[in-house]
């Protein structure tokens, strides 16, 4: 079994066309599933594979599928979440743009398993140029008999549509996404009922991330057991990592789960080390909402063991000294990065993106942005740091959807690990009024140190 499952053919010229994709083994999972497997059989393979939701939550995909209400007389829906908006994450865009048929194939095989007759790909509006790429691929799949009535003569029929959003991070939350798909504001719904029981148009619905759905293709081709051979423990298979920030080679990399973090950052196969010969200061490993870690804690956990790219290893130490794999949005900062300014951009992001439904998030994100703005711009006072911690605590756990937590965690973790740098901002306002202050003179600390490997 090849160890690059999703991106194996990504650089083949013409792979975005049906003919080339098919020539390289494309749509084999549809043939196998529809002709020789029952829908339950497909689900069993996904369960066996140990595949976990690749959008960020990491919930077992097969288990999520099994919650779908099959007794309901209403139609069932599969909705693909292509609303990729978590800062630092751009893997789904890469997949859809480069190898659109992989997603179409995954949608057909997964829809068959779930008994969906109509499926939607909800894609963020800013990716409008990819809507055209996907629609062209869908058109080709219809023409080749892989979509529409009586697919491959098996009696199974499926219609697949692309639905663009219009700019709202919150629509990546699955119930907000469904509201948006129904033509409404993206306000998350109270759960229960869960989408598996009452989702799109109050019918049983599964919402899966792009990468999760594409992973179903190799799982069916090679079998769930084979897929589960890759990885470590409960982190099975491969994962797309979006690498950005102060590295030599930003981009999307498909890794086997279990790769050491140090190898990912420094190997020429992946990030290629820190740019400009500088030292590593901090990493946000799983998209902007996961806790930031200083260099020494991202390379090794608090026990001194090497940190691996797995859900468990990155989580080791909880929120005291660990973080999360999240969406795989891997943002790297060198020794000149200002933690406060970076955090302020995140706080501004969450304030902008809060849907406004829950007061703690609507008001709290605004306060965090304001307070961080004044600290970063030399107007902070010594109480502001504790005020931030207090506001973050009051948001966390007190909102309908996880956006509140997502806004609170970066603030809490940045202060936990880089408190001295916040204090420095308050103490030396004249220095920090220059936004490039640390570029000239990197911040030195007694509690953390930038690392040169």
């Amino acid at each position, binding site marked *: 079994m090849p160890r690059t499952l999703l991106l194996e053919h990504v650089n083949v010229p013409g792979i975005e066309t049906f003919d080339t994709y098919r020539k390289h083994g494309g749509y084999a999972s549809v043939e196998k599933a529809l002709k020789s497997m029952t829908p339950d059989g497909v689900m069993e393979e996904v369960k066996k594979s140990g595949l976990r939701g690749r959008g960020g939550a990491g919930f077992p995909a097969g288990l999520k599928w099994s919650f779908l209400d099959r007794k309901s007389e209403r139609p069932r829906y599969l909705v693909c979440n292509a609303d990729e908006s978590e800062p630092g*994450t751009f893997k789904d865009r890469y997949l859809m743009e480069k190898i659109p048929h992989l997603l179409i194939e995954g949608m057909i095989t997964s829809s068959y398993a779930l008994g969906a007759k109509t499926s939607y790909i909800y894609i963020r509006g800013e990716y409008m140029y990819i809507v055209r790429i996907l629609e062209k691929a869908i058109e080709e799949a219809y023409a080749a008999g892989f979509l529409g009535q009586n697919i491959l003569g098996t009696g199974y029929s499926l219609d697949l549509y692309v639905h663009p959003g219009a700019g709202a991070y919150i629509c990546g939350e699955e119930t907000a996404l469904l509201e948006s798909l129904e033509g409404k504001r993206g306000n998350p719904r109270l759960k229960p009922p869960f989408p598996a029981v009452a989702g799109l148009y109050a019918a049983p619905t599964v919402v899966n991330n792009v990468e999760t759905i594409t992973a179903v293709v190799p799982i069916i081709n090679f079998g769930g057991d084979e897929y589960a051979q890759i990885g470590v423990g409960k982190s099975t298979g491969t994962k797309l990592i979006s690498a950005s920030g102060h590295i030599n080679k930003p981009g999307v990399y498909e890794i086997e789960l279990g790769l050491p973090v140090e190898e990912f950052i420094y190997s020429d196969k992946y990030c290629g080390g820190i740019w400009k010969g500088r030292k590593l200061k901090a990493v946000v490993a799983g998209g902007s909402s996961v806790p930031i870690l200083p260099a020494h804690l991202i390379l090794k956990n608090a026990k001194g063991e090497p940190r691996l790219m797995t859900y468990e290893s990155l989580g080791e130490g909880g929120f005291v000294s660990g973080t999360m794999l999240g969406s795989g949005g891997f943002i790297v900062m060198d020794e000149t990065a200002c933690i406060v300014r970076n955090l302020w951009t995140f706080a501004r992001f969450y304030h902008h993106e809060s849907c406004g439904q829950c007061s703690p998030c609507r008001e709290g994100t605004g306060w965090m942005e304001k307070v961080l703005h004044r600290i970063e711009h030399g107007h902070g006072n010594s109480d502001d740091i504790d005020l931030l911690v207090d506001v973050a605590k009051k948001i966390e756990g007190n909102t309908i959807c996880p956006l509140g937590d997502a806004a609170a965690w970066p603030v809490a973790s940045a202060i936990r690990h880089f408190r001295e740098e916040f204090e420095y901002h308050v103490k030396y306002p004249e220095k920090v009024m220059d936004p490039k202050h640390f570029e000239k003179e990197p911040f030195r600390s007694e509690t953390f140190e930038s690392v040169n490997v």
Partner: protein
Amino acid sequence: MQFSDKTLALVQKIIKRYPEGKQKSALLPVLHLAQAEFDGWLSPDVMDYVAGLLMIKPIEVYEVATFYSMYNLKPVGKCLIEVCQTGPCWLRGSDDIVAHLESKLNIKVGETTSDGMFTLKTVECLGSCGTAPMLQCGSKYHENLTTDKVDALLQQLTNKNERTTYMQ
């Protein structure tokens, strides 16, 4: 006020993607079409027209149009320049790109040039962190930006002198 025949046919096609009676689902895609066809923004008249087309109440259109960041509720320049400013882009120099655009166009973020050609806007993460800094103009992403690349783009847009839309 009315869509062209071609767009009207497209609207009917979009409505058919959703179950009968669920035509409200077509609202977001149809608003994109409306913005592209009616001068790059959604005036109250345009929103009322879309409400009529989809047989929903005007308020249902207003509440959606005011929620999503890609819908413009005021007129914008022919070319709307949207620069990403979130963390990963900031780490790679988006502040410098914004400052360069402000000085080159002689406007501040949120303003339109006096000739009505450019509107400058900062936006939150567009999913282009690995090719930062970046900006979006119409449906096109301009990535790995340098000030030289920005200058060349402005020149190209000026020469073309056409409205950019997400639907291109």
